[in-house]
């Protein structure tokens, strides 16, 4: 069971503003989902390796070559705030 306090805590970690109604709704629905996950407790996973990927590929690297960026203007056009071709961001330290 997920409490409203726990929802508030994870919402803060995830940087999402929630209304009190949303907090209560998420506490209810996520509790139901987490409860369903208990089905996995039936499975004995002693000595079972976790699977993080299925390709079997590892250490795929490419040569470290720089390429000319041909879409600088388009990238800048997507930024929320630009000043003299630089991205403007709010102050990190107050």
């Amino acid at each position, binding site marked *: 069971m997920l409490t409203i306090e726990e929802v508030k805590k*994870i919402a803060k970690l995830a940087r999402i*503003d929630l209304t009190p109604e949303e907090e209560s709704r998420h506490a209810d629905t*996520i509790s139901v989902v987490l409860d369903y996950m208990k089905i996995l407790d039936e499975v004995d996973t002693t000595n079972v390796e976790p699977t993080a990927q299925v*390709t079997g590929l590892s250490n795929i690297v490419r040569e470290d070559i720089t390429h000319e960026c041909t879409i600088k203007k388009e990238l800048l056009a997507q930024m929320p705030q630009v000043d003299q071709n630089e991205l403007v961001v709010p102050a990190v330290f107050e």
Partner: protein
Amino acid sequence: MSWWCQQFLNNFCMKELNTLTIKTARAGLDKKEFTSVELTQACLNRIKERNPELNAFITVCEKEALEEARAADKIITSGKALALTGIPFAVKDAICTAGVRSTASAKILDNYTPPFNATVIQKIREQGGVLIGKNNCDAFGHGASNENSMYGAVKNPHDLTKVSGGSSGGSAVAVADHMCIFAIGEDTGGSIRQPASFCGVVGLRPSYGRNSRFGIMPMASSLDTVGPFTKTVEDMAIVMDIIAGQDSLDATTVPDTVPEYSKTLNKKSKIRIGIPKEYFAFAELNKEIKTVIEEKINSLKKQSYEIVDVSLPYTKYATAVYYIVVPSEDSSNLARMDGIRYGARKQEGNLFELYAKTRDLGFPEEVKRRILIGTYALSAGYYDAYYKKAQQVRTLIKNDFDEVFKKVDVLVTPTSPFTAFNIGEKSNDPLAMYLADVMLIPAAVSGVPAISVPGGKDKNGLPIGIQVIGPRMGEEQVLQIAKQIEDSLQKQTFIC
């Protein structure tokens, strides 16, 4: 089909151009029976007529598509047409298309125009495909009904009170309703196969690593795949021939040689077909669907395919595994949607408030829920109980498939336990919505390819999908069996 039958069809049942397949459109364009402008205009007319109701497109590229079609006609006249020159296609809005707005159906990207193409889109463009528009989907691929879009739900063309399926619902509808000739979607846990099944088209989730994911908006990176929606299995092979293969921009693509799927499609290889009993034991499985699948299995048996009963014992745990792994990877992937470098920014208060408010306004409820579940599952003290446990059970599900594919070459199952459900029926019950993907998730967590091919309709006229699952990189035999199922359906319903 006999010769006179074909002539009869050609002469008396002249099809609307937008209803053509890639193969028939290519033939008609090359024989100058019609132009790409006429073909593209026919699709645009259909969009104008039907989209206000179906809501399958968020963006329609009318002007650009007609310009591209005019250029394509010149290429065709000069005799230099490539595989897709002049053929209109649509793309899920969570896939980047250079210069064309791509929202992922979330307001946080309402005004986002990617400066580059996803690799699969680049490959289709290089073969001459005409981009007709971007399809509505569940925001960032989160959903099984296309009701989680911030641009409204997509409706099922067979019954407007039913869902299209999701998350790539708009793409399935665009193909099913002939608003384009084919489309490209994504499948993380069933997002191509389920809407393909609900709308009555062919949809393929390729093996993980077969097609490049560069340029798709990531959801769960260890599961995301990109695949086509087509009107026929033959068209599926044509598109896969173009988009499959290793990509230096996606390190998860495998170096294996890609077979020429359209050349081997009609090969009658000795294929052993497994029927996994767990898929027929779900309480929710609709009887009509069960009957249709059993008929198809019998018809395959009559064609001398060996049918073997098999078991995948960990099937019932797949949905729980999926809804831990996916939200966890989601919560990490979607951290990039923060209002800083691109997309919407809600400039209010300090930096924390900027992030939190931007994400509040930019994400629909289900996206928030997934991020919250993932953040919880990955947080200190819960990681082993949820994420690690899920990944261990994932190994057992994957082992099930590895073992079964030592005995058989493909598996045949229903795609979904039910046909398209009512709009609103499951939208307030996230767990019920998650369980809708119960037959699609096991293949996804194992990284094996699976296709949904139309198998018939239920008594209400809603399409029933049949799923063919193969071993990793086994698209060839998946397509061959899908073709057999499609042919048997045509024999059944098309008596000339």
